[in-house]
């Protein structure tokens, strides 16, 4: 399997699978509540300056600066 990279490394249009979320328990729990849990498939829609818009299961989320660095993904081919 490919090495995992922070979500922010993915370009718009690419798809990855979440393998780990780094951060406090509270943040991790919120991300899982919203569907960003390990094994979820994330599609990067737009990129800002350090921030991202991603799509998970049909909903769109804005991830602020720093949040996208905490989510580790395996990029799908």
């Amino acid at each position, binding site marked *: 399997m490919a090495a995992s990279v922070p979500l922010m490394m993915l370009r718009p249009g690419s798809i990855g699978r979440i393998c780990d979320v780094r951060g406090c328990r509270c943040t991790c729990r*919120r991300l899982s509540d919203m569907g960003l849990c390990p094994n*979820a498939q994330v599609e990067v829609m737009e990129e800002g300056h350090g921030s991202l*818009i991603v*799509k998970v299961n049909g909903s*769109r989320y*804005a991830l*602020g600066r720093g949040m996208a660095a905490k989510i580790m993904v395996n990029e799908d081919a």
Partner: protein
Amino acid sequence: MALVGNPNVGKSTLFNALTGMKQHVGNWPGVTVEKKVGVSRQRGRDIEVVDLPGMYSTIPYSLDEKVARDFLRSGDSDAVIHVVDASNLERNLYLTLQLLEMGLRPIIALSMVDLAQEQGILLDVERLSSSLGLPVVPINASRKEGLDRLMAAALSPVGPEVLAVDYDKDVSRDVAVIRSILEDAELDGNREWMARNIVAGDATLLDDVPVDTRSQLDDALSSMAAEDNELSMVDRRYAIISDLAAKVQKRPPRRRSRSDRIDRVVTHKYLGIPIFLTIMWAMFQLTFVMAEPFMALIEMGFEGLSEFVGENVGGTWGSFLGDGVIAGVGSVLVFLPNIMILFLLLAIMEESGYLARAAFVMDKVMHAIGLQGKSIIPMLMGFGCNVPAIMATRTIDDDKDRLISILINPFMSCSARLPVYILLAGIFFPGNAGTVVFALYVLGILVGIGSAKLFRSTLFKGEPTPFIMELPCYKTPSALASLQKMLDKGWVFVRKAGSVILLAVVILWVLSYFPSGVEYASKDSYIGMLGMLIAPLVAPLGFDWKIAVALIFGFIAKEVVIGALGTLYGVGDDSEGLSGQLEGDPAWNQVNALGLMAFVLLYTPCVAAIGAIRHETGSNRLTLFSVVYGLAVAWLAAFLIWTIGGALVL
């Protein structure tokens, strides 16, 4: 009956469709979270419907979610309608599972069915219903489809056989341990559910148990692998959901939806900020241009009224009605159109889904001033009114980010300050009124930014926390909902003019008219004496005693500054109106008018905003600080304008 669901799933639309006009907005006891209650008439019965704040999980993350969760827990609701977004089944079902674990038997109202169809998602409603063991009713709330079936389902009992969530043996063992501790404690509610949520990491429940139970729980929890449990429970729930989703839904290969295509442009890395600024500028322009004809009409109305009073009522009563009530309240009500249009535009921005995008677009800019992207939303709302804006900071999770956002919010120029600018800029900067007013808004934003940086480097040291926020699909704002919001806010403004502002001008009139025999609002009247007393404080700013009095009364509400000037100048029976009076008074000039506008912009918005700050920060010290800081900044700004401007112009 309660409505529950994730944010942005169409819960409010359903609530409006069910209750129509029969609803009122209040507060949940003890907290300022909005409580929307309405009455729905079904088959001759009146049913009370409560619209709960949106929630993602029964483990609350914010105050709003805790309110919603605790209401569900209390069992105060006979039926629960769970609104589920058909275009986003997986995440919505996550909450469904948690509600089932709570022991609730919700009726599923399937919303956004047309959106799901548009995206090519096929749903087997029957199968979804039988898998969950719950009634599922597709609805289209804005077209009022499916509501009868939904209510029929809500009024009949749900079968006992529902989908159960089973966890692995480690989790089950730990849940059993917690449960056995809870068994001996004196408490209300579903112990099995409490045990599960405590194992899943819900710390809020620990505050509800007696102290000795609490310490037993803490001991037990410390020996458990808390994070593993939590992860395994989340995994299990999502595993159940993805099995279920695979059975009931067919998703087409990914394709770009309309919202995706709009986002492509609107949230573009480089175009995003110019687009945002253009929208802001357009909003600002529209507020003025569209309001003009309506303002002229209202002005004519009040002129006619004061002429009538001037001709037919004399003496003390004539002065009371003319100088006091009409001059004071009339001067303020003229600005009703501006305020309604501003709120209409804000509502459209929120309804369309753009407001959430602004948080993304402005994230980097907000970061540079020590805040996170989400902080932009209360700032924008502050242009309407600071009170709801300060409450809206609640969606910011991090305490420091939130407190800074609260403290800088008063510098966002609310609609109540607009009348002051329009009046003064119109008189003293006739050719450039628009530019001057725009400059004031910018000044407010700059002071807000400067203060945010200052607070971040002194009071609240640290980095802003990264945020996550759902971006709803773009939709055409519903004309009805937007107009409703506009009328609500307009009505609040009219009520304010008829109550607080009226009261303030009546007090002012009394203080101006007496002791009997003195010239109206002269230095010998009571108000004159008060004004002379405080005048030295604002003399360095180029303000005379009448301005000083108006500013003091402006603490009640900013529009009162205008109302107070109207009353102090007794313009009710004067054909020139307040503008003419101010223009002719040698105490006024371009420089101190500009200084006054800056002062009004920067000092404490109003008592209601002070109340909101007190409530949201929970701290008297921070509230006092906010008031003193605002006054100091306002004084300094007006002082600089008077000193520098005076040297240049006068």
